[in-house]
């Protein structure tokens, strides 16, 4: 009679006795892993583009053009502000931490309200760490602004930048 099983023992016992030689696999791993470690990139870099305001750049616009009021996000250790031309739209007090989440919501709200998402100026006070400036530039870009300019903020938020 033809049996389905070639072995006299049940299949479970045959599997228990199997001893796979993994040494060749280990050899492949030992060659492959140093190669992959050398080619791995653990930190991904990116770039953030920004423009300079006209007073810092080498090219100055036509003086006969009427200046267009621009939206400015002001960063200071005392408060964060959203300014349109010379008019303060929002002011957020800075506590132990910078209120970036609230600022993000306010910027989005102003973009929707003004229907203006062309250009924004990020104006920072001199003593602000650069990481906060980059964070605010990110928030502006996430709010939909196509161009982000970088400038220095004055003590008076309404003053011309």
């Amino acid at each position, binding site marked *: 009679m033809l049996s389905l099983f070639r072995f006299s023992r049940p299949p479970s016992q045959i599997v228990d006795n199997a001893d796979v030689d993994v040494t060749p696999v280990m050899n492949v791993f030992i060659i492959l892993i140093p190669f992959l470690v050398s080619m791995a990139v653990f930190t991904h*870099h990116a*770039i953030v*583009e920004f423009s300079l305001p006209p007073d810092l750049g080498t090219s100055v616009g036509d003086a006969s053009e009427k200046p267009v009021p621009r939206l400015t996000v002001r960063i200071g250790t005392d408060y964060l502000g959203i300014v349109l031309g010379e008019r303060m739209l929002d002011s957020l007090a800075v506590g132990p931490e910078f209120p970036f989440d609230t600022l993000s919501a306010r910027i989005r709200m102003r973009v929707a309200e003004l229907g203006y998402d062309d250009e924004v100026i990020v104006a920072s006070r001199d003593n602000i760490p*650069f990481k906060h400036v980059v964070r605010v530039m990110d928030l502006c870009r*996430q709010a939909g602004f196509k161009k982000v300019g970088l400038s220095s903020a004055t003590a008076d938020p309404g003053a011309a930048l």
Partner: protein
Amino acid sequence: MSILPQKSAPNDDTVRPQLTSLVDVMTILLVFLIKSFSSEGSLVTPAADLVLPVSTSEETPRVRSSIEITKKAVICEGRVLAGTDSLLSGDSLLVPRVYEWMKVMRQRSSDSSGSELVIQCDREIQFAAVKKIMYTCSKAGFTDFLVLVVREE
């Protein structure tokens, strides 16, 4: 005849180490390394004592002229141009030594992409230092500025 090698006799003194757990570790490691594998490599290498700011930007870095602002010094092409402390304490926006160096650098790359400058700045550096470097470089002929950041995952 069996395909699998015969098990050694019980009285055999040969010790065969169990490699199964090691293979498990290697497999996990292999998957992780394949995931972080990059055929391009890294186009830019920041200075060792530089901690870059984190950003959500996904724009890939370009190979351009660059200037590094570390906690100690302003460096360009491995040459220390100014100390960061002296940069912050000075009143003038124009930093003469940086201006001279960047002017030569700008003349060297006269094509359109040569007007782009990558600023590699430490995340804790005060904005005043960045402002002075930007002003000085814009006077030297650089018009487009790019900030190198670490991409937020």
